[in-house]
């Protein structure tokens, strides 16, 4: 469509303005993270302080928290993606009584707010001795991820080639072999997107680890950051460094695989 040079110029101004609005706060936290810890430190030692990061890592115990985050995220991703592939395969390629009902049952799980089921789940898992364990923190997130993952994989399997499945079946392949040797290999992009989204949601989750580990023994990175903000009140440099470290793994993944993130969150949201 043809537009005048003036309009095009104005569009660039708008584009740059909005990019700055988004990047401004990020620039603030990054510059605080590299900044001096106090006014006196600023007078003595210049303005660039990368040593804030190892110091925050040490004082804020981010090493320990990030390790917990990695363990929880790996458990949630592996279990929920496997279960979602299997369930999505059934709902996407097989016709059986109750399939539609099952689809809606899983869809319900995408909409249910965490705070609705987390309270009774906490008290029931406390009786079972699972609170303050990695499994207690992972289990509700596995359930939520399965709801989205099943929906996501079902969509993929529905659009996968019918002819391919029929051909494999004529070759005598069972449903298990068709899944793992035909559909999963060609569905790698869809599965990678699901892995990335699940990993991100688990890494960023706050309420579930907060509730499920009241004594703080299973503290994930975002929780560690919130705790650090409450405990460590001298200056903001170390807090900012901690914030940058907590966000960094996902932001790095996003920079390299942004298509997957954007496509996943946009298409995953479009329900039928």
């Amino acid at each position: 469509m043809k537009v005048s040079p003036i309009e095009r110029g104005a569009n660039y101004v708008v584009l740059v303005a909005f990019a700055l609005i988004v990047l401004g706060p990020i620039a603030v936290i990054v510059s605080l993270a590299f900044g001096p810890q106090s006014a006196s430190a600023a007078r003595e030692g210049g303005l660039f302080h990368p040593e804030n990061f190892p110091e925050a890592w040490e004082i804020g115990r981010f090493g320990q928290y990030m390790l917990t985050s990695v363990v929880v995220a790996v458990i949630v991703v592996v279990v929920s993606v496997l279960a979602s592939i299997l369930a999505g395969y059934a709902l996407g390629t097989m016709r059986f009584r109750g399939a539609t009902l099952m689809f809606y049952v899983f869809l319900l799980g995408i909409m249910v707010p965490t705070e609705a089921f987390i309270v009774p789940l906490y008290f029931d898992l406390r009786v079972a001795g699972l609170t303050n364990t990695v499994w207690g923190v992972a289990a509700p997130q596995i359930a939520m991820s399965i709801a989205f993952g099943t929906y996501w994989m079902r969509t993929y399997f529905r659009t996968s080639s019918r002819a391919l499945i029929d051909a494999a079946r004529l070759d005598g392949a069972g449903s298990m072999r068709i899944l793992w040797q035909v559909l999963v290999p060609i569905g790698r992009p869809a599965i990678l997107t699901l892995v990335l989204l699940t990993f991100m949601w688990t890494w960023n989750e706050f309420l579930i680890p907060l509730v499920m580990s009241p004594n703080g023994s299973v503290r994930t990175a975002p929780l560690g950051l919130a705790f650090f903000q409450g405990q460590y009140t001298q200056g903001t440099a170390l807090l900012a460094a901690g914030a940058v470290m907590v966000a960094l793994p996902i932001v790095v993944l996003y920079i390299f695989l942004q298509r997957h993130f954007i496509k996943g969150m946009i298409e995953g949201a479009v329900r039928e």
Partner: protein
Amino acid sequence: MIGRSATRRSARSAWVPWAYLAPALVLYGAFLLFPLVRAAQFSLFEWDGLGASTFVGLDNYVEILFDERLREAFWHALVLVFFYAVLPLVIGLLLANLLTRAQVRGLGFFRSVIFLPQVIAMVVVAVTWRQIYAPDGPLNGFLRMIGLGALARPWLGDYTFTLPAVGLIGTWVCTGLVTVLLMAGMSRVPRELYEAARLDGSGPVREFFAITLPMVRGEITVALTLTIVAALKTFDLVYVTTSGGPGTSTTVPSYEIYRRAFELGEVGVATAVGVVLTLIVFAINGVVNMIGDRK
């Protein structure tokens, strides 16, 4: 979509699909569906989380109606809907329309940038904005620099301005998602429609209302559903920035659920709020989709 061969096959082995569904169904059922049913059950009891519980019928729901703090929390959630959903939709429509009309360079890069807040942990976002809003923070510094020092205030310690200040963080987070969604929708509108409209002599404003807006109805529905639900479920942001304060000026339903269940020992009321919140989320999903589907 489902081939004939699948039908024949499934008649022979009806248990096969259920075997594939089983792992997902067991985990999802045990850790989400069952607790959801338990929530409905808990909400009929008065329980402090430790001792014996007493059956109180619907008293906890009645309390939601009469407890001023809870009523306030739901009202605040509604205010947040404006900042999370309405404001980003208006900005997103303008921005996406502008960018789709003119082929500007660097659109892909711009898309990646405005989407970025979506992938950053809310706690990090909250910590960041707490610094920006601090009494000696960059926002007040900027206002003083441009001679508007009179407007400078402790943004998160002010009874009037804290809720909008928290809401604007939501706007910052949600606008990118909404814009990217709408851009995807607008790029699918056939160019010929606009050219035909131009021949009829309609200007950009009429084009927007007559062509663009109806064509992206589906995307608007999705954007509203996502952002309204996000607003109603706000927890991390309030927990980290204000803890519901000052006073009760920024408390929200999710925060009340957490506070009552785990700090005050009012488990029954907390679960009742959770049930009500779930029903509201479902109702909004239903209503928004019903309006969106109607052609």
